[in-house]
């Protein structure tokens, strides 16, 4: 037994699924238990199906798991959809006054709560959540105190609300003790000091510690969380945070600010990123450091606004016309968002080029507990070659775009006396002056393009090389990138335990690419399988474009739902046993399905006449 429980909480949007989930997750964090939460919400304010899965463990869970041990159903729909998913030994908590379960799977305990009796018949509907969480904490074998202090924390300014919630939760807690059997799997509190946080919050916090003082945004799910963290913290941290008219304005303002020496960053999703691309090329040619985050969601077009996908790699690689140095990196976990953004600022300034961070809905909106010590680590701030009063070339000619062996030219921040320069988005010479139109000079053009391109060599030295996780002698090598690190890691370990020796090569840095090192690893691999969250195999093509290496097989998913370990395990088994080259995974549990009303084209003749 792994001392681990996975709990599903579901209801209609507006039923308070998120607040029930937060209360539970915060109580767990308070008890030193790690949580990984995935919220499969729909893009509606009220109605629709909203479902949250929380995996809770004394060891840090790396994904939201395969199946649930506990279910808190806030509406009938949730009960119908998710009850069949419960594992034997599982528990289902629901409001007995309103909901009626169908037949429970074998070994699953139904825990009906008489909500009116426990919370009072005049209680607000959301009180059912509080009673249910109280009961759940009891059945998990945990102490009530944690829950109580969460209410005290959340409603700090409203003692009456604290009292109502505490008494409702206590009623559920006590009722469960008397009437139901606890989970056989017990959880124990630990001394870990944990924070509960989303990837978007960590992107914001990471930017803040890195010294970001300029954040402009235009709202777009699932990136808005960064703005929602930045805006209320602007005052205490002294950050210029603005919402502006569109993403074109966002990126141009961000680059304008960065040009003046401020660390500036912006975040959007694929559609907004598409609008930003022309300006990223500008940052490339005028060599202004800027960081742009694309929190990927399902595409194309408006696509799947509330669902996850890894399908903007092509867009990032192809962002903007022409060749220019850029760095593309994809954080591999929620906590990695915190580190990635700090690295991104350092790289951007050291190499005076744009850095693209490909985050993903799964990371950005997912919740994870993180050790507070992890957040307190200090990453050095490296600003690259800046002209300061000490190293100023006062009196000599200053060439902003000096052709150096590294391709990096010392940067004077505008406002520095005796270092006047212009920066042209047309091709320019070392002094920044336009050479295109009348005076296009092939020799200068090539010199400047080569100078910029040389920076990519320096970047490769700085970014860490991908390395193999797991045994060197494996039957299968799973290759992944970005957000899937945790789920692949677990799948690889599980497969190895089952006798299929599997190792894992994961990519965080996508451009530039460690061609030689990667080939050295892959040449020794017996069976290589690329796992990614898109339809066409964007990473597979990237890998083969960079190295000429073609993987033996592929597992792909693009239905909007994230991978669970079982998907990858089953995929690998199918590849091995049936010799499949591509396995497309689909989440088919009834919980993921939503009935849709018919569109205007499918009305029957009768309905039209009536």
């Amino acid at each position, binding site marked *: 037994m792994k001392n681990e429980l996975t709990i599903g909480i579901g209801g209609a949007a507006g039923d308070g699924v998120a607040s029930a989930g937060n209360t539970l997750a915060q109580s767990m964090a308070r008890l030193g238990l790690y949580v990984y939460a995935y919220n499969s919400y729909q893009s509606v304010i009220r109605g629709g199906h909203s479902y949250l899965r929380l995996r809770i463990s004394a060891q840090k869970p790396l994904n939201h798991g395969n199946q649930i041990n506990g279910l808190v159903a806030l509406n009938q729909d949730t009960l119908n959809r998710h009850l069949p998913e419960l594992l034997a030994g599982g528990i289902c908590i629901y409001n007995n006054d309103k909901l009626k379960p169908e037949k429970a799977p074998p070994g699953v305990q139904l825990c009906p709560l008489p909500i009116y009796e426990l919370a009072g018949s005049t209680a607000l509907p959301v009180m059912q959540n509080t009673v249910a969480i109280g009961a759940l904490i009891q059945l998990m074998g945990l102490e009530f105190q944690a829950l109580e202090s969460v209410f005290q924390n959340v409603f700090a300014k409203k003692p009456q609300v604290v009292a109502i919630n505490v008494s409702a939760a206590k009623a559920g807690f006590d009722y469960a003790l008397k009437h139901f059997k606890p989970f056989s799997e017990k959880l124990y509190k630990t001394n870990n000091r944990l*924070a509960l946080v989303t990837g978007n919050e960590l992107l914001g916090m990471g930017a803040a510690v890195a010294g970001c003082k300029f954040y402009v945004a235009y709202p777009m799910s699932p990136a808005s969380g960064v703005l929602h963290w930045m805006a209320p913290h602007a005052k205490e941290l002294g950050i210029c945070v603005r919402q502006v008219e569109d993403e074109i304005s966002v990126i141009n303002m961000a680059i304008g600010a960065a040009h003046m020496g401020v660390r500036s960053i912006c975040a959007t999703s694929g559609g907004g990123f598409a609008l930003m691309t022309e300006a990223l090329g500008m940052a490339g040619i005028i060599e202004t450091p800027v960081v742009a985050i694309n929190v990927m969601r399902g595409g194309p077009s408006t696509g799947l606004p509330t669902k996850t996908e890894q399908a903007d790699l092509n867009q990032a690689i192809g962002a903007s016309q022409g060749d220019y140095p850029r760095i593309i990196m994809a954080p591999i976990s929620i906590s990695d968002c915190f580190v990635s953004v700090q690295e991104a600022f350092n790289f951007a300034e050291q190499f005076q080029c744009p850095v693209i961070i490909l985050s993903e809905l799964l990371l950005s909106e997912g919740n994870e507990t993180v050790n507070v010590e992890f957040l307190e680590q200090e990453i050095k701030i490296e600003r690259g070659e800046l002209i300061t009063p000490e190293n100023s070339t006062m009196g000599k000619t200053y060439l902003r775009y000096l052709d150096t062996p590294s391709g990096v030219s010392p940067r004077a921040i505008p406002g520095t006396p005796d270092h006047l320069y212009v920066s042209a988005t*047309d091709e320019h010479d070392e002094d920044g002056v336009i050479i295109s139109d009348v005076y296009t000079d092939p020799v200068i053009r090539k010199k400047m393009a080569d100078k910029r391109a040389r920076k990519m060599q320096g970047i490769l030295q700085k970014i860490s090389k991908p390395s193999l996780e797991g045994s060197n002698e494996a039957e299968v090598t799973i290759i992944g990138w970005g957000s899937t690190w945790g789920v692949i890691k677990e799948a690889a370990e599980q497969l190895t335990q089952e006798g299929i020796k599997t190792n894992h090569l994961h990519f965080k840095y996508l451009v530039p690419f460690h061609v030689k090192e990667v080939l050295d690893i892959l040449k020794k691999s017996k069976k290589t399988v690329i796992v990614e969250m898109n339809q066409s195999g964007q990473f597979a093509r990237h890998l083969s474009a960079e190295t000429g290496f073609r993987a033996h097989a592929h597992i792909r998913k693009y239905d909007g739902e994230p991978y669970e370990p079982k998907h990858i395990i089953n995929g690998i088994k199918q590849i091995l046993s049936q010799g499949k080259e591509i396995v497309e995974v689909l989440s088919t549990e009834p919980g993921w399905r939503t009935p849709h009303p018919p569109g205007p084209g499918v009305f029957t003749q009768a309905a039209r006449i009536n």
Partner: protein
Amino acid sequence: MVSKLQVPLTVAAYKSDVHNDWCPGCGDFGILQALQQALAELGLPPWETMVFGGIGCSGKVFNYMACYGVHTLHGRVLPFAMGAKLANPDLEVIAVGGDGDGYGIGAGHFVHAGRRNVDMAYIVLNNEVYGLTKGQASPTLDRGQQTKSLPLPNINDGIKPLALALVTGYTWIGRSYAFDGKHLKEMIKQAIEHKGMALLDIIQPCPTYNDLHTAEWFNKKVKEEEKSVSKLVTVEELKHDGVIKDPTNRDEVFEKQRKAFDLIQYRGERIPIGVFYQIKLPTYIERMQSQVPMLKKYSPVRIPYADANHLPTTDLTDAFEEITF
């Protein structure tokens, strides 16, 4: 605040040696010269002055000046320059672009810039054509007009940029003419000195592509009440004073806005130039500073965030507290 030079530099100090590739007779020459004179007379240090350019013939003004300059993207000079000004309010920021650049592809930014009142000057070189791309109709070309490159007359109505500026909140709105050096220089100086977002629309003959509104056309006398008068007429001659004395007086503001709107539209035979409207309102930076006091103490570019060992000094204790349970 931008410092002022004790001993002003000569105009020559603001000129660069870069070869100029504008067509002979282009109105842009007059504008470049007036801008350099204005900066010299204002005593603005070149290293604390930034000229941003859009893309177009007009976008190259920065290229011929000796101060900090950036060539941005077509239509994006405003957001780039605003980002720069917000990051370092201590520099004097001047954005220069064309009519296609600002009122066409950049129209969205043009509208929203008005709402912010960032303290900067936006100078638009309005020649009614897309000069650099060989004379296609720009958004300011009127309906029925057919400049040299057009196979058929224009069937779009022309945009009225100054009227648009008025309703979107620009706090200084003026017009001048590329070849009236004295008037133009004064207008540029005022636009720069105005504390807030200034729009100066400059009528700029493009001898190469705009064969309708040439320098000769602007110089022709017109008839008004039987008298022969100049085509360009200053707002002073028309007895208009668009400067708001009391920004809190709604009657005065509405009255002056209405008058300004009339005059902006007024063409008839004559074209008014000068300041149509000016109001003193808190700048964007002041508005931000009132919400984020640290931005009053430092401009964003100067807020310290690392110690001598390059380790971060930003204190996130409170933020961690919020997420730790």
